[in-house]
């Protein structure tokens, strides 16, 4: 049996101090205001070094470590990393889901878009432009062979990640004529091999020729507004920033990063690596602190940065020793199901499906320590977030991609629904998925999410009530209290008292212990402990 946290370690550390399991402000739904940070040094990350160290050195690998940055209910409080937005109990409206992180609007067409710099073809073609208001955007195009594929993936996935709770840039689908673009006199051009020179009109023509153009002469692109603040580079999926006082939980243990595995599996965000993140020092409400972003969703769904994804993306690491050994020894004649089960191909979507999708087997491009440390309580939390998206929510967000082919759109909706359900069925099976605890007329009520969503048949539960000493952490079992009715011994406790109930399902090793605190207005759930 494994558990979901590490409270025992706390008890060991506090030998000379009174032990206290719950504080008056538990469960905490918002982290306290961050400490003010000074001028932080920007630094880059090498993707190849990160890949090498994740494959060879494996920093942050500690699957036994309990999750951090969570409250006593196992939920992730609001912070500079994460904001609770869309939830089973508090869903966002469809309008909010579709709006996503967009706020200030797409590039203004009141004047020309001044090209500041550009990346050449061969890499992902892209422009950095300044609009009439002086706002900067990154403009990315689709390859001519696959219109919409990358731009749609960007805007759709950014809406999902925003709704789930992450900080993402504002992204828009934009359409414009070539005449909208003007070259800044000092516009830089970065050739695929990295050489930098002044950009010419020929470069712009070549970039535009590499993408598709509609019959009315307009180009489709994705515009991503530059993130504000002082950019200090990506965050890593392990350790903490040594210069940020508010960064106190090792990233590999953060539930919001461990659970990100599930979201990435759902949306096939296989490029979830350090270089696709960004830290920026912002000033909000008089506070100056580091805000953490996820970036670059061009390699999600069926897309890659250069067109349709290759089949191994999401199915095997870039260097996957067990996979390589199996392939080598079998001469490639014992393929994995994903290698031989084609998904329907849509030029606007690539190959993205659900037939061979196994949420446990999904893999990013190379190992991610937070993902590898994810435990059943992390994936349970994340699966709840995924299951919060209804079919209608998914359909509405997919519409943001503005696919021209209804078949591609419908297939994507169908795929995301099917993958969502596989995630719920898989990760809710690892724990006893009880949630939403409350008292109604002196009876303990809760929801079995597995049963509620049809993943499990109705099941029987056994309940054991206990009183709880918050200072010592000692439970006193009430042997005869085994029904859902609140026992008489607990019904009239004074305010500030604690008690709980341990609930088991048919699988005895899976249990949920829920802790209550009495208050003037009734019983309040203050803690949840899952064992599996």
């Amino acid at each position, binding site marked *: 049996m494994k558990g979901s946290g590490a409270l025992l370690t706390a008890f060991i*550390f506090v030998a000379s101090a009174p032990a206290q399991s719950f504080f008056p402000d538990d469960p905490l739904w918002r982290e306290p205001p961050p400490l003010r940070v000074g001028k932080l040094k920007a630094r880059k990350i090498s993707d190849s070094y990160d890949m090498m160290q994740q494959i060879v050195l494996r920093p942050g690998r500690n699957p036994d470590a309990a999750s951090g940055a969570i409250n006593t209910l196992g939920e992730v409080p609001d912070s500079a990393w994460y904001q609770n937005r869309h939830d089973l109990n508090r869903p966002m409206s469809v309008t909010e889901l579709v709006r996503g992180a967009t706020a200030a609007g797409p590039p203004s067409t009141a004047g020309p878009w001044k090209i500041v710099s550009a990346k050449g073809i061969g890499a992902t073609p892209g422009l950095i432009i300044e609009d009439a208001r002086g706002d900067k955007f990154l403009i990315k195009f689709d390859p001519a062979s696959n219109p919409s594929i990358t731009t749609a993936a960007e805007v759709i996935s950014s809406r999902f990640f925003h709704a789930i709770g992450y900080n993402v840039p504002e992204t828009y689908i934009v359409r414009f004529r070539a005449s909208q673009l003007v070259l800044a006199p000092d516009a830089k051009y970065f050739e695929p091999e990295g050489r930098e020179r002044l950009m010419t009109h020929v470069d712009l023509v070549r970039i535009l020729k590499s993408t598709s153009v509609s019959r009315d002469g307009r180009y489709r692109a994705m515009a991503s507004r530059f993130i504000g603040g002082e950019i200090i580079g990506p965050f890593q999926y392990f350790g903490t920033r040594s210069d940020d*006082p508010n960064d106190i939980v090792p990233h590999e243990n953060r539930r919001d990063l461990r659970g990100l595995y599930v979201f990435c599996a759902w949306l096939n965000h296989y490029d979830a690596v350090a270089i696709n993140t960004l830290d920026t020092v912002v000033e909000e409400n008089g506070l100056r602190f580091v805000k953490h972003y996820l970036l670059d969703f061009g390699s999600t769904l069926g897309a890659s940065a250069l067109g349709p994804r290759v089949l191994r993306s999401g199915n095997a690491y870039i260097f996957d020793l067990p996979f390589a050994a199996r392939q080598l020894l079998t001469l*490639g004649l014992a393929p994995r199901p994903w290698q031989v089960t084609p998904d329907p191909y849509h030029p606007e979507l690539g190959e993205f499906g659900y037939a061979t999708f196994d949420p446990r087997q999904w893999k990013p491009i190379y190992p991610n320590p937070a993902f590898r440390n994810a435990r059943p309580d992390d994936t349970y939390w994340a699966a709840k977030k995924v299951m919060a998206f209804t079919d209608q929510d998914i359909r509405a967000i997919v519409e943001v991609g503005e696919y021209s082919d209804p078949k591609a759109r419908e297939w994507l909706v169908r795929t995301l629904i099917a993958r969502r359900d596989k995630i719920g069925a898989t990760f809710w099976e690892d724990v006893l998925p009880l949630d939403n605890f409350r008292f109604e007329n002196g009876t303990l009520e809760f929801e079995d999410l597995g049963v509620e969503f049809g993943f499990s048949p109705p099941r029987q539960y056994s309940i054991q009530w206990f009183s709880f000493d918050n200072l010592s952490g000692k439970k006193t079992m009430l042997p005869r209290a085994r029904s859902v009715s609140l026992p008489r011994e607990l019904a009239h406790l004074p305010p500030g008292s604690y008690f709980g109930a341990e609930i088991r399902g048919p699988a005895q090793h899976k249990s949920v212990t829920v802790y209550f605190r009495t208050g003037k207005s009734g019983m309040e759930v203050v803690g949840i402990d899952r064992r599996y």
Partner: protein
Amino acid sequence: MKHTRTRAPCFLAAATLLHASANPPPATRAAQIEAKRVEKAAHLTPERLPALHRGFLYFEENRLYYRITSPTPEVSIRFDAPGGGFAAGPQYLRRGLFGGRGEVRTSVVGTTEAFYLADAAFGFPNLAGGRASLEFLALRQWSPYLDYYGPGPGSQKSGRTAYSFENTGFEVRSGYNLSRNISTGGLTRYLLFNVGPGRKDKFASTDEVFTPATTPGLDQQTNFINPGVFLDFNWVRYPRGRRSGTRLLTEYAVFFDTGAAGFTFGRFDVDIRRYFALLNGQREVLLRARAAFADPFGSEGVPFYIQPRLGGAETLRGFRNRRFYDNNMFVLNGEYRWEIADQTDAALFVDAGKVFPSLGQIRPFQELSTSYGFGVRIRQGNVVTWRFDVGFSREGPQVWLIFGDLF
């Protein structure tokens, strides 16, 4: 068995440890978190990457791997095989000349065994809206020793000799795309050769073992004007980055002896390739049949140093380079490739081929030389950039590390 639970353990454990003895315990969860932050704030250090990480970053930001392996950067390292083992050298490429249509390339490649190849090319690869091309090429090659075992398929491994070889060539080549799948063109070369005694201590010089009767050109060297035409039928597609389809390349050229040696001859080359993308595009089977036929037009014959050859990384991979020489040759290659890692394939291959003096003596199943082996292919997309092969034949194993693909 562990009995643990989800109660902000990281906040709770660390903060309590740090403050239990020195400070009163926090009264709230928020205070506990704040205490932990204050504790960290007292020991902040600037972010600094390890030296190795900084090294990777420099390599990456300057795109050094790309510059080393790709032929497109202005300055790169070229890997080629002028003979004599692994070769490398600087290459300069400049594109975008003359309104973006012209390009120039020059390189010098050498080996530790003092083999050198220097070349320079100037061309217009995208004339007439990308339908036509024109290229001028000059090259100079020095090889202190090249292997020669005698003519014909029955030459013995023990008969290995060496000759030195120098070659200077000038070429004009033009091409035109007749359609999406068919292109044609013409070329003219001026070729100058100089062959001498092999400078390899372990082996006898070729002129000490063979005679001009068996080895034409051994005593007389000449220069050639060499016009030719070529035709390329290309029906290859790329499902999931794998090749599928057929390609047929043919070239006919006449070598006019400009001296008095009487070595004028014609040569016809044909190369048929068939690619099969199998198992959802995850596997590839490649077949190739290649042949070269030289017609001496009743002259003195074809000089041995420009005869069709077999053996080496491009033909029979289980035999040494230039193992078989004669007026004609054919070779069949089959290869099965399957992905073992990203952009990396394993390969099993089999080769069979033969040289022969005239078409009447082709007898394909007599004295056929065969080899087989395994290898690894490193790809960038659908282009193989590096190839490692281990080939086996009746003459033992051969190991090849080659920049570029065979097919």
